[in-house]
């Protein structure tokens, strides 16, 4: 079963939920697909046993063969190729690797070179547990390719937890694609509720099964519970804000290692989402 953990608003506890659920399972794989700002590895403290570069292609122009017709630049939708009457300039960081420039070139002057846009790290974190995370190179415009790769290498896993990026744009869609169930980490505040509505819209459009965990449940108001009831959305659990929890998380430790209250909540969530046998 593939379970994605996501949120509309950032900082509502996706990673906290992901790593603590992961620790509470006997056997599971966790992938951190927030490749812009991955944090799970800070809590799991595994050792990297394998690293992979994720490559993208970008065009290289053979000036000897190039007729300076400008068709490649005209075609490129991403401003990655600028042509003058004297030269062709390629901005590889803007290239989306669509292959169009090569197709339109009348003199076959374009070939593709590769560059790394980031990495995937494979970490050992204990028996029966697998953990991978991705990291986008700073300055690159999109991590979707890395997310797709993470999903691809773990597609045969029995129980897969997907720590997803915040928000609802293309990275998040890529992370949750193919998931059997989604857990929304939400906050009971006006911002939290507003952002959660957008996630609900996304999940409904993608026809996903989902439930909600309310984090920092004592710092806010009841509007979120009213909304969940009205919309018939499953409430999987509530986690209170306590300053001691904030401190534990601050130093990169797992709540389940310190709090029976949190352990019980994780067990509850696992029972509800995966079934009794996995708890």
């Amino acid at each position: 079963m593939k379970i994605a953990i996501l949120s509309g608003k950032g900082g509502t506890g996706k990673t906290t939920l992901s790593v603590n659920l992961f620790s509470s399972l006997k056997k599971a794989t966790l992938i951190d697909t927030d490749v812009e700002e991955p944090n799970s590895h800070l809590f799991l403290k595994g050792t990297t046993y394998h690293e992979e570069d994720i490559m993208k292609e970008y065009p290289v122009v053979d000036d000897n063969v190039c007729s300076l017709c400008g068709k490649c630049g005209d075609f490129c939708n991403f401003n990655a190729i600028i042509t003058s009457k004297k030269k062709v300039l390629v901005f590889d960081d803007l290239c989306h690797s669509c292959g169009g420039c090569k197709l339109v070139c009348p003199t076959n002057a374009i070939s593709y070179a590769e560059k790394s846009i980031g990495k995937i790290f494979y970490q050992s974190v204990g028996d029966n547990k697998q953990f991978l995370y991705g990291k986008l190179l700073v300055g690159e415009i999109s991590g979707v390719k890395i997310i797709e790769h993470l999903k691809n290498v773990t597609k045969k896993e029995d129980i897969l937890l997907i720590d997803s990026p915040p928000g609802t744009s293309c990275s998040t869609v890529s992370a949750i694609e193919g998931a059997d169930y989604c857990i929304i980490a939400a906050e009971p505040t006006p911002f939290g509720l507003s952002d959660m509505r957008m996630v609900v819209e996304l999940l409904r459009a993608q026809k996903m099964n989902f439930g909600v965990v309310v984090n920092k449940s004592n710092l806010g108001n009841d509007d979120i519970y009213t909304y969940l009831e009205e919309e018939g959305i499953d409430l999987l659990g509530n986690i209170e804000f306590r300053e001691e929890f904030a401190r534990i998380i601050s130093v990169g430790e797992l709540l389940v290692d310190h709090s029976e209250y949190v352990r019980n909540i994780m067990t509850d969530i696992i029972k509800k989402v995966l079934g009794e046998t996995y708890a």
Partner: protein
Amino acid sequence: MKIGICASNESTDSEVADRFARAEFFAVYDSETLQFTFYSNTAKFEGSGAGGKAVKVLGDLDVEVVLVPELGPKAIDALKIFEIKSYQYKQGKTVREALYEYFEKKLPELLESSVKGKH
């Protein structure tokens, strides 16, 4: 020759733009006809790569010199392939004033990407 000037509006009395790639308009002055023509800078709508695209807009208009507030690295690279020279004006001038200052040789040539100073 044609000189491009980054403008905030379609008039020679309007203030010069404070960004190159995101300028609203380019004023192009033709030193032979002594006329100004204004073009909307289509690069301003781009998410990324606006610098390169803005240069393309000007290059295709056969501009040889451009008067700018600043330039990012992509714009600098693109200006080189068009062999367009760039000169930096100070904010707050009108399009016409910036042009006069260029002719009076008061504007420094911009050869590298201008980096904003640290606090």
